[in-house]
């Protein structure tokens, strides 16, 4: 009995062509949805965001003329903050390359609670390793490698890292890694050595405490080199 009824129900709508078409479309949609769902399932592993140890903020600034303390702060703008591997890539897959940065502009990638300024509490007793970019064709890759080392926390003393800066300058591009404690020679030098490894460079690099840079940016003496 029941089966007969079902058959009747199924058969009846087929008499009208319109209904048949609609039914077919629905069935197709359902199949597609099912396919999509199964695809999503297979990608599930890729759809988890992987947390980073720290939240990181990207800052940008541009100076057309001579850089001085006051106008520099005005032009410095926080662009975005991220805290997962995937969001990091969303930023760095779409961020204009450092090779395209116009002269006078900079990217600063800092831990969220640290402002990329000398005066900030976390930087006051710190300093920076400075690497001159000699080969402009390698700058995009070198910048990415050093950024990955920061957000991936592969520096041994990564808690001492404040942030990383790329300066596009007429006098030559620079990558700087800012650290918290200039007086800690071992920690600071370890960071410098690892940075050289990451950037695949042999040239000596130097570390200058911010205090010295503040006094005289031109004649600041470096404290360590590796």
């Amino acid at each position, binding site marked *: 009995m029941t089966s007969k009824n079902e058959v009747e129900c199924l058969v009846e709508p087929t008499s009208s062509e319109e209904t048949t078409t609609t039914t077919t479309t629905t069935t197709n949609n359902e199949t597609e949805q099912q396919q999509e769902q199964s695809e999503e399932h297979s*990608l599930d592993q*890729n*759809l988890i*965001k*992987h*947390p*980073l*140890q720290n939240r990181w903020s990207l800052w*940008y600034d*541009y100076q*057309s003329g001579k850089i001085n303390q006051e106008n520099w702060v005005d032009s410095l*703008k926080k*662009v*975005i903050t991220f805290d997962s*591997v*995937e*969001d*990091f*890539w*969303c*930023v760095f*897959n*779409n*961020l*204009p390359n450092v090779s395209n940065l*116009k*002269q006078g*502009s900079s990217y600063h990638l800092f831990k969220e609670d640290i402002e990329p300024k000398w005066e900030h509490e976390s930087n006051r007793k710190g300093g920076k390793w400075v690497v001159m970019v000699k080969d402009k064709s390698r700058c995009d890759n070198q910048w990415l*490698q050093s950024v*990955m*080392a920061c*957000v*991936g*926390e*592969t520096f041994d003393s*990564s808690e001492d890292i404040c942030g990383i800066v790329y300066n596009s300058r007429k006098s030559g591009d620079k990558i700087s890694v800012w650290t918290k404690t200039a007086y800690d020679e071992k920690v600071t030098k370890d960071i410098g050595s690892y940075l050289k490894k990451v950037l695949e460079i042999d040239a000596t690099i130097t570390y200058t405490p911010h205090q010295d840079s503040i006094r005289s940016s031109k004649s600041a003496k470096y404290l360590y080199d590796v």
Partner: protein
Amino acid sequence: MSSTTKAIPVSLKIDRNDINFSTSVGGTLYGTTPGGTKIVYDRNTLLQYRNSPLSKTPPPELAHLTEAMRSKKPIASTPTKPVNPPQPTPTKPTDEEMFQME
């Protein structure tokens, strides 16, 4: 009613060196420091997630940045000549292909 009690079978030789509590199941997805919980990703692990569907969407904040970068006076650059488009090579199906159906 009497109940029969039995000792729960326990291996007295508990010596499992095969369990490493500092790694997650299925490998070290999140590396940790010895005594700490620092989340570490080496270069290859980070690159592995670079092409995930979640890693592609351009954040709207970046649009503002590119706008800001453009709005300021750009540095004079030499105008680049448009590259000559490659000459389209006419691809006519050969006779063989056309009559293959026979």
